[in-house]
């Protein structure tokens, strides 16, 4: 895959996520369609979705989730500080461990 294709794919993903966010409250199914297309583009171009967009997709049911609308975000301190994202569509949870930059470098 050449660099040009990857650049265009990244641009398209950015656009589709922006539009999905804008249109979500009026037409959730169309927003979901945009996000599905964005995922397909990322897979076709063999690029990873940017972190901010990856957290907007439920890792279990792949639906577009927005905090306050159809997802719940909580910070927990047990064991290790982490964020819990609950998808209110499928009810499943995703955990993201919070580590400082220095700690990550040590590992």
């Amino acid at each position, binding site marked *: 895959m050449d660099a*040009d*294709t990857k650049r*265009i*794919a990244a*641009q*398209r993903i950015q*656009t*589709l996520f922006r*539009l999905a966010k804008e249109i979500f409250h009026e037409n959730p199914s*169309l927003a979901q*369609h*945009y996000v599905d*297309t964005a995922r*397909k*583009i990322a*897979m*076709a*171009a063999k690029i990873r979705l940017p972190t901010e967009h990856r957290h907007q997709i439920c890792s279990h049911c792949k639906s577009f989730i927005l905090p306050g609308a159809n997802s719940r975000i909580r910070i927990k301190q047990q064991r290790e500080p982490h964020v819990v994202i609950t998808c209110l569509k499928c009810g499943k949870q995703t955990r993201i461990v919070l580590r400082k930059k220095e700690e990550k470098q040590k590992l």
Partner: protein
Amino acid sequence: MKITPDIIRHEFINIETKVCRKPQASYAKISGKIIDETRNTFVILHKGKKKTIIKDLAIFQFKFSDGTIAEIDGKLLVGRPEDRLKRHVRRLW
């Protein structure tokens, strides 16, 4: 936006468009924003109504966000949105 053959690999959703060549009367004077795309069609929001236009039959005039206007034959745009990404077209002009 720079007008190169690579233009067909970009995203067309949310771009202002106008149907130029009309193979049938129902396509006349259709213009508006593209809201959806499938392999063979574009869905255009024309005066609050959704109009499905077959890509293969029409010629589209796109107006990009920076004011560039490009007229593209719909035949070149046939293909699923994720497959169009890898399409290479020989320079035709």
